[in-house]
């Protein structure tokens, strides 16, 4: 496979001047500000050919010699019609004039036409406006939640922060925010992601055919970028709801430099939780929740010259969670914090060459503490990453080439236990620390063979190294000490990818995608529900990198005039060296080495995804349905028998609908239904030391009840008054008050002396029906 890909890649390059056509290339920019317009549509009328500009506003089209009528359009701008006569390769820059009336109506919306083109990409493109199409949780719109309405993307059930793509684990997604990795992209139990929608410009979500410039994860890439344009006018907006306040500022400093910042802070400890706690407290399953979070985004964009642009971004967000289990008088507390910073330099070397260089930092801190009376026990965990990458993008004929280098340096301090009481600090010795670095080179080509056929081929080559300081235990029990910077283990691997797209006709296309991915870091699942107590460790010799192959084949169709589009995509995946942790969090505090408690296994998953979307008219929306199977085999678990993946979803259905009621009112609804999580249920019990103890049965052999829920929202847009506009929205989460349990456990009650003992199944369900009101005011 690898060799044939390499050959293909060489072939692609050698073909660079094969086509007998002339090229028109250039940019589409905004009149006045000269900002590039990304996603503008160029429609060549006589031949019905369409092309979209890339994120630099760049386009390139191969055409026969002759004269063409071109219509250039982008929502929010006046359409531009031009006539071009082509005898040889030509370059043009087109300027679109903003349509003031339209701009007020339409914010940055998706691309109206050429859906087929964009659907055929290996990524789903989401813009801010797409996030607002479904009802937000307590009125808050969210990237990850929006992704979860797409087929093949499961949520882990209520209160689960994880994103489960095509049967993969939540640690198999590369989540990038302005080029920096976000290790725990979730605030509270997944109800909100750490991405404040005001700081989100566009999102590319890849679940198959992951391109070579991304590396290091098996399941998906979520590449989130803030709006990187230089703001041309002041924008202030503020939003207030029952649980959070948010402010968003964009300030132009000069015509070439602007800053943007957005902040969010919740005050749920004063609003939501007292009410939730009031309804859920009882003696046996009583838990007291408290939780709040904040996040802060800052970014600045600077045009150094016409060709050089700098963009710097900084993010910090933190969470403070508490759960008191009344039955045992135990207080659990978790605090976690993500931070990220990046600096990007984009240089247009020529019209055909673009160089992007990024230096970034990612940090993640997690603290878990459990307190019972005077005793405190807990675990700290920390990750510090520095990364650097350079990507050169070149347009040669019908080729779009990308080549680059990247380097990452990791420091993981995954589990530092502590326990203390008033008098004694327990001594757990030196914390486990793992240092690792990675160097990668990548190369890819996106080649249009013809109007019908295009091929993408890419290859990423990575050299990975686990380095000292480290003490390794040999097979004979002898300790080997590695000094700082010394190589403990190293490996080299290749990740090829291939995507072939073939248009059957103007509105129907087939796409095949293959990718092989290697993941050098592992998310060790500890908690029952994907809490942030799950932690990351890098590959070491005992825990080699995770490896996976994915094949997918789909048919894509659009009915452009009627405003419908849809696809069916089938996929098959295999994975190896995936990890499970044997034991609970408390075992960690007793175990000095994590690797002794990790089991390695393999997994497979396959499924079929159906997506149907209506894009035109007062009523819009989409339905996603996935039928799938995902399982795991671990020698040390379930007696070696294959068992279902915890988040195996036989069925997963999501429907999102949006209706424009009148000019100023819109309604939206979301319904989701999915097979329940697999879990391990007790099969027998025994009596020991006067206790009734559970004995557990088949691993993941039981299922939680089917998950389903409906959310509704209504938004009213008040008329613009001078520079102000305001919005009022009402939303209801879990309209019919479905109790979707996240965790089941079993307790015995009674007395052995009287011979009356009953075993009860108890469930923890988090959220009942939750209505909310949001008010938002925008000053421009």
């Amino acid at each position, binding site marked *: 496979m690898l060799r044939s890909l390499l050959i293909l890649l060489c072939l692609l390059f050698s073909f660079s001047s094969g086509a007998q056509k002339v090229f028109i290339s250039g940019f589409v920019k905004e009149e006045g500000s000269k900002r590039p317009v990304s996603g503008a549509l160029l429609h060549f009328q006589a031949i019905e050919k369409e092309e979209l500009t890339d994120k630099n506003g760049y386009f390139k089209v191969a055409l026969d010699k002759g004269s063409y009528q071109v219509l250039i359009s982008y929502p929010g701008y006046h359409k531009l019609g031009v006539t071009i006569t082509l005898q040889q390769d030509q370059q043009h820059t087109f300027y679109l004039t903003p349509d003031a009336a339209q701009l007020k109506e339409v914010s940055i919306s998706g691309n109206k036409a050429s859906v087929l083109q964009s659907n055929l990409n290996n990524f789903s493109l989401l813009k801010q406006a797409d996030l607002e199409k479904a009802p937000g949780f307590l009125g808050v719109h969210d990237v990850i939640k929006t992704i979860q309405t797409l087929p093949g993307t499961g949520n882990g059930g209520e209160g689960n922060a994880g994103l489960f793509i095509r049967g993969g684990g939540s640690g198999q997604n590369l989540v990038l925010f302005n080029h920096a990795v976000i290790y725990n992209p979730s605030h509270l139990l997944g109800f909100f992601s750490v991405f404040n929608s005001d700081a989100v410009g566009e999102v590319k979500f890849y679940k198959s055919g992951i391109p070579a410039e991304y590396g290091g994860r098996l399941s998906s890439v979520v590449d989130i970028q803030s709006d990187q344009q230089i703001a041309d006018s002041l924008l202030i907006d503020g939003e207030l709801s029952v649980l959070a306040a948010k402010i968003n500022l964009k300030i132009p400093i000069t015509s070439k430099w602007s800053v943007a910042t957005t902040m969010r802070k919740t005050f749920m400890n004063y609003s939501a939780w007292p009410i939730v706690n009031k309804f859920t407290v009882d003696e046996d399953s009583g838990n007291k929740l408290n939780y709040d979070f904040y996040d802060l985004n800052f970014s600045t964009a600077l045009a150094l010259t016409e060709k050089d642009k700098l963009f710097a971004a900084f993010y910090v967000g933190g969470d403070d969670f508490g759960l008191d289990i009344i*039955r045992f008088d135990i207080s659990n507390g978790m605090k976690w914090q993500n931070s990220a910073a990046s600096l990007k330099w984009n240089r247009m070397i020529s019209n055909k060459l673009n160089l992007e260089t990024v230096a970034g930092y990612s940090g993640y801190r997690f603290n878990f503490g459990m307190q019972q009376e005077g005793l405190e026990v807990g675990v700290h965990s920390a990750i510090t990453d520095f990364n650097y990458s350079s990507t050169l993008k070149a347009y040669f004929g019908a080729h779009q080439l990308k080549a680059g280098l990247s380097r990452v340096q990791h420091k993981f301090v995954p589990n530092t236990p502590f326990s203390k009481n008033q008098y004694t600090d327990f001594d757990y010795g030196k914390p486990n620390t793992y240092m690792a670095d990675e160097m990668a080179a990548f190369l890819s080509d996106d080649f249009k063979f013809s109007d019908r056929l295009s091929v993408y081929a890419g290859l990423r080559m990575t050299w990975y190294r686990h380095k000292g300081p480290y003490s390794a235990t040999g097979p004979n029990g002898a300790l080997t000490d590695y000094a700082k910077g010394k190589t403990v283990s190293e490996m080299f691997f290749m990740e090829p990818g291939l995507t072939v797209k073939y248009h059957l006709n103007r509105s129907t296309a087939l796409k095949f995608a293959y990718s092989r991915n290697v993941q050098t870091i592992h998310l060790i699942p500890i908690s029952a529900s994907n809490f942030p107590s799950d932690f990351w460790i890098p590959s070491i010799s005992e825990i080699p990198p995770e490896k996976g192959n994915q094949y997918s084949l789909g048919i894509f169709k659009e009915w452009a005039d009627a405003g419908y589009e849809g696809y069916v995509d089938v996929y098959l995946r295999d994975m190896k060296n995936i990890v499970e942790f044997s034991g609970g969090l408390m075992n960690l505090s007793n175990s000095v080495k994590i690797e002794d408690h990790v089991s390695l296994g393999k997994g497979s998953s396959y499924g079929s995804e159906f997506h149907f979307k209506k894009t035109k008219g007062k009523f819009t929306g989409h339905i996603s349905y996935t039928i799938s199977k995902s399982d795991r085999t671990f020698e040390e678990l379930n007696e070696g028998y294959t068992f279902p993946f915890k988040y195996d979803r036989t069925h997963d259905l999501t429907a999102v609908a949006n209706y424009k009621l009148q000019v100023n009112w819109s309604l939206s609804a979301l319904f989701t239904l999915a097979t329940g999580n697999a879990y391990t249920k007790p*099969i027998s019990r025994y009596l020991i030391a006067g206790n009734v103890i559970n004995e557990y049965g088949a691993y993941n052999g039981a299922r939680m009840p089917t998950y389903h829920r409906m959310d509704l929202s209504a938004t009213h847009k008040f008329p613009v008054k001078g520079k102000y506009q305001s919005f009022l929205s009402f939303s209801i989460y879990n309209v019919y008050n479905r109790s979707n349990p996240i965790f089941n456990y079993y307790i015995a009650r009674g007395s*052995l002396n009287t011979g009356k*003992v009953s075993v009860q199944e108890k469930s923890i369900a988090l959220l009942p029906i939750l209505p909310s009101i949001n008010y938002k005011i925008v000053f421009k």
Partner: protein
Amino acid sequence: MISFRNTLLFIGLMSLIYACKKEGNPGLYKPRFVVEGWIEQDDFPYVIVTHNLPFFTAVDSAQLAEVIIRYAKVTVSDGTETEVLTATTDKRYFPYFVYRGTSLKGKVGGKYSLKVEYAGNTLTSETEIPNPVNLDSIWFTEKQVNNRQLNVQIVDAANEKNYYRLYTKLEKEVIFTPTLLANQDDLFFNGKKLVMQVNRGMANNLTTKHDPYFNIGDTVLVKLSAIPASGYAFWNSLQDEILNGSNPLISSSKALKTNIKGPGVGVWCGYSSKIYRVIAK
């Protein structure tokens, strides 16, 4: 009569399951013996033998009586002396039926093997009685007006691997109850002074009634046992299951670390114990 029929049924099931070498679907209920045995210094060995129950079987007096294995041959040996224990009722220990020695007594440093034979099945285990450990001091601190919290201090021996298990009882009570976090491993405080603010444990996991403190004036007996590593592993995994099995943040390892070999689970453990008598004030 019913109990006898159930026992026969159980034997049948057991022999059926263990006749096959490779076990089938791991999700099905498998009959197992449950052994809880102990030997303290200067005391006779005690062993309770029961069997497990399918999960949702109703538990009533008849069922509780039925889980007891009454006709096992239980043998304890210290390498030189071997004794077959005598079955007897004992109201102190649930299910009020124990196998007890009458001649062999535990000694510090002694190694003891256990063999339980029943209906063609054999369960074995080994344990030892470690060197005794001491409480350095015991005192109470005030909690509210009438409540007192127990505090203890241990000075760990630096040159010795120690595992501790701590219990309390009121003088008037029959048996000792392990404290809330009863098990300690000196891995984390080797050679140091360990001070513990002790919370009383629940009598068992069938009740939510739990008072972590003593009342002023209570006469309290505090028992500290030194236990071997295998005993620590078992009791700690039991504590993990009881405390964390229902906590979604932590979750338990879902497996008791038994030291019983054969078709059973449980623990055979030697204890070297000291008991202190104090008055809460």
